[in-house]
């Protein structure tokens, strides 16, 4: 076959003239430097390739060679603790090879070929292997057991197994013969194309919450394991902070953190912080169950487009082992912009705001890869996706936010006004929503308390009342309101400042158990109930405020340590006593 030669170059888009023998989405090496690229359009005259690296210095006439398959990730032990770029090149290994600045054309294996893993083979000669079946395990990190599974499509009878012992990812551990008599060797790793979802047995309803320790999320707008959530917010509203916080504390087994077109220093921060943070559940650093994918904003734009898919494929792989994985994508807007940029270079007809018309379908494909499933091997696992959205000018009516809204069922809207007042997490309780609450209600009822949901509703209703009252207050001041409405405003302040606002840098407040969340709600509602009795007796609210109970509750999140929840009884008793005195007086 004739060699394929570059014909034209325009930014990350390269074309080849004539018939090429390549197929759509095939991964190719471009030019003398072997830059990684992918075929994205073909017709009789031209084959178009998007290149995942800087193209400067590339010249027409340089060769394009095929790799024979689509853009794939390598799945096997050694993924955890690693940090990859958008096309799964390990950045620490890249640093060793090319120094602190990323050079082009470095083809480094995604998994360290020399690392030895302590493998236990779990099948014996004569066993039938079906897709998804686990044939070997090895401890990948002290907290995660890696399970090597037969890739979809691999089927047969075991003819040979290796002794238990230490092997590298490319060593054969099992040999099988399929029904046609062909022999296949199974190693510790497998390849999977990033744009194709990994098959599952069935999708199951999402009925368990992802517990985050963030009050406004767990109580007000919970997300289910296997769900999808969007965090939209203008710059400076704390998207990245919220994502980091979720990654650090949520109760998923595996965290995949994708920094998609964001800041380099932030990725370094995630890297150091996750390494320093000791996971309370395992007593080990958080990195033992984390993968970072860092494609910062100055790294090639086409690799940014791929990074989201790389991340979710890794998440699906661990899901198939029976783990609950959570993937944070920061930010999907940068991914959409990469789509737009490449679409522009292809001179496609733009739709809304220059985005390609296929933006909604791409978003849908991506978010639909989240789910709570029964894997091919019968294990239950989930992929939860939390995508940050960065709407230009904090205008939520732009296409990426609007389309993301359609495909996620949980929407945590970050608010500039709250962020300016340093109310973090700046999740606006009026514009955010979750559709998971009805699915999760039985779980909360059984595991937290039967009254959890009614407390949540009362809190939500008080906040709603406050919002409408504030409209009046903004016009004429709070002095004119009757006392019962003033009370609503006061108690809503306690809810906002004492409950919804959370200090991630305070050691007691950074993670709050559901039990404490419930108790906090209860004591706030208790105060409200008792105060209502006072107001009904025409006792002026100023007297009530002088008791200092409201301010005490605002600070309870700091004053009541997480291991001394019995102190809530003292708070309730104090409310009863002080208000009782006022009633008798």
């Amino acid at each position, binding site marked *: 076959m004739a060699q394929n030669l570059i*014909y*034209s*170059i*325009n930014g990350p888009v390269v074309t080849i003239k004539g018939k090429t023998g390549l197929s759509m989405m095939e991964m190719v090496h471009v030019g003398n430097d072997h830059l990684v690229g992918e075929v994205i359009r073909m017709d009789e005259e031209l084959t178009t390739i998007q290149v995942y690296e*800087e*193209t*400067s*210095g590339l*010249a027409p*006439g340089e060769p394009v060679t095929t790799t024979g398959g689509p853009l794939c990730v390598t799945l096997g032990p050694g993924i955890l603790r690693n*940090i990859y770029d958008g096309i799964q090149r390990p950045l*620490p290994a890249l640093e060793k090879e090319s120094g*602190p*600045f*990323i050079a082009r054309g470095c083809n480094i294996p995604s998994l360290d070929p020399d690392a030895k893993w302590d493998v236990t083979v779990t099948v014996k000669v004569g066993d039938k292997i079906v897709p998804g079946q686990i044939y070997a395990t090895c401890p990948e990190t002290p907290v995660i057991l890696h399970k090597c599974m037969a890739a979809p499509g691999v089927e047969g009878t075991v003819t040979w197994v290796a002794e238990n012992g230490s092997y590298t990812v490319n060593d054969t551990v099992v040999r099988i013969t399929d029904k046609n008599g062909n022999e296949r060797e199974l190693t510790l790793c497998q390849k999977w194309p990033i744009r194709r979802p990994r098959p599952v047995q069935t999708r199951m309803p999402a009925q368990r919450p992802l517990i985050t320790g963030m009050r406004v999320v767990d109580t007000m707008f919970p997300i289910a394991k296997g769900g999808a959530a969007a965090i939209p917010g*203008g*710059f*400076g509203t704390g998207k990245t902070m919220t994502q980091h916080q979720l990654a650090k504390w949520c109760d998923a087994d595996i965290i995949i953190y994708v*920094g998609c*077109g964001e*800041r*380099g*220093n932030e*990725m*370094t*921060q995630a*890297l*150091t912080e996750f390494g320093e943070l000791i996971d309370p559940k395992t007593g080990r650093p958080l990195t033992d169950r984390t993968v970072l994918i860092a494609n*910062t*904003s*100055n*790294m090639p*734009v086409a690799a940014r487009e791929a990074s989201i898919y790389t991340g979710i494929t890794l998440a699906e792989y661990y899901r198939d082992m029976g783990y609950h994985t959570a993937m944070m994508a920061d930010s999907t807007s*940068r991914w959409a*912009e990469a789509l*737009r*940029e490449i679409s*522009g270079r292809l*001179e496609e007809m*733009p739709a809304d*705001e*220059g985005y390609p018309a296929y933006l909604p379908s791409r978003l849908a494909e991506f978010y639909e890869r989240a789910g709570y499933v029964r894997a091919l091997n019968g294990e239950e696992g989930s992929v939860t996706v939390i995508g940050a959205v960065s709407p*230009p*000018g904090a205008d939520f009516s732009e296409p990426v936010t609007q389309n993301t809204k359609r495909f996620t069922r949980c929407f945590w809207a970050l608010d500039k*006004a709250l962020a*300016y*007042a*340093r*109310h973090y997490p700046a999740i606006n309780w009026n514009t955010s929503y979750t559709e998971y609450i009805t699915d999760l209600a039985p779980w909360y009822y059984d595991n937290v308390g039967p009254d959890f949901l009614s407390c949540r509703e009362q809190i939500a209703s008080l906040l709603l009342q406050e919002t409408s009252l504030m409209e009046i*207050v*903004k*016009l004429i*001041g709070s*002095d004119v309101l009757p006392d019962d409405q003033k009370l609503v405003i006061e108690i809503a302040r306690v809810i906002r400042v004492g409950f919804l606002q959370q200090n991630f*840098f*305070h050691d007691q407040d950074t993670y709050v158990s559901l039990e404490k969340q419930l108790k906090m709600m209860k004591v706030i509602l208790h105060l409200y109930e008792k105060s209502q009795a006072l107001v009904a007796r025409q006792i002026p609210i100023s007297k009530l405020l002088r008791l200092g109970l409201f*301010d005490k509750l605002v*600070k309870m999140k*700091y*004053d009541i340590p997480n291991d001394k929840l019995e102190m809530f009884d003292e708070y309730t008793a104090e409310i009863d006593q002080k208000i009782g005195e006022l009633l008798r007086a």
Partner: protein
Amino acid sequence: MILEHVGLSQINGSLVVLDGVQNASYDEMVVMKLTDGTQRVGRIVMIEGDKCVIQVFEGTTGFSLDNTRTTLSGHPMMVDLSPEILGRTLDGLGRPIDGLGEIYPEFRRDVNGSPINPVSRVYPRNYIRTGISSIDALATLIRGQKLPIFSGSGMKHNELAVQIVKQADVSDGEDFAIVFAAMGVKNDVADYFKKSFEAANVMDRVVMLLNLANDPIVERIITPRAALTIAEYLAFDLGKNILVILTDMTSYCEALREFSSSKGEIPGRKGYPGYLYSDLASLYERAGIIEGRKGSVTQIPILTMPGDDITHPIPDLTGYITEGQIVLDRGMDATGVYPPVSVLPSLSRLMKDGIGAGYTREDHNPLANQLFATYARVQDAKALASVIGEEELSASDKRVMEFGRAFEQKFVGQGNTNRSIEETLDLGWELLSMLPREELDRVDQVMLDHYYKPQVNNAHRDLGTILKK
């Protein structure tokens, strides 16, 4: 043998098309000689077969289809680097224009640079004291950070930048240098910076790159890249702490838009190219600190928001890339508050890890939070007062209003003074002490016991009334 290509097949604005070229590579520099003996440089921005689209930096005035001879240089845009570059004044492409002769290069580097591997970065933690309270306390500048100033035409952003340069702690050491890149600024502004650097006695540690308002706009696209390449060389090869001032980023973006539309690209928002975000990121992300190297690159880009609109694509995309922003406020500027820093939208994302015990002072973070929260209340009270009049406000709102005035006049409007971090933080507590202790809900009790000083309360009440009069 050097091939010369005679003539051109098309000229369109600053873009020309050259046919029949062999061995051209993408992003390569070309030299174009005119028959009158003058010479211009250009860059290949698109190749299709043997046809190249070339962007000419100094404009195409005087070009015709047959009076040019084009030579390929075989490499991308390079800038000459040598330790002697300090103290020099260069043009927008990094060539000396101060009449002091050529720079004898030790290195020549590609102006596009390469992205820093996130693994090789060191997370910036070392704060830079600027002596300006509103910045030091509320939007702390960190070494290795990119912190832009969002301003508007006619506001005092240049003065603020100069004050930062003069007062910044880094400026004491010998290993400190400034790279100043002017993009489309007026001659007077460039002069102002030059004079200020001279007055601050740092001129021998400044590299100036000037692409002034009347210089060709295409050159402007290279100016910040050349400046950052020089900065990276000074920082990571010579181990210096570099402060890069890029002004005015708005002119840069407009140049990019002009260039993009002449190439016939599909425009994004407000006609800016769809890749404006990636393009700006390729500049701003060149700030940082690298593991195992001594120096650092800190960036202060200055941009004037068209129509003071912070949602305009330029400030908007900048804010998404940079680690915070310092926003100037026209209202405050008009009432003579200097520096007119608009406190609420200003932010430094890196400050949380560079302040507190061991860096500044233990109370810094809660104090900053409380000042923000209280000042946000001031805005609510102001809004209410503008409807019902200040007299009708509740006692607590009135106190807050008083606090707001004192805060703007004393804390923000400090003028040309240089405050130590202790002075700044103490002043913050002094102001907070005008309010009742219960209203300080962002600070825990231990901190309040130590720093909250209600006895100075009355003194400040008086100040409040004085200011009112």
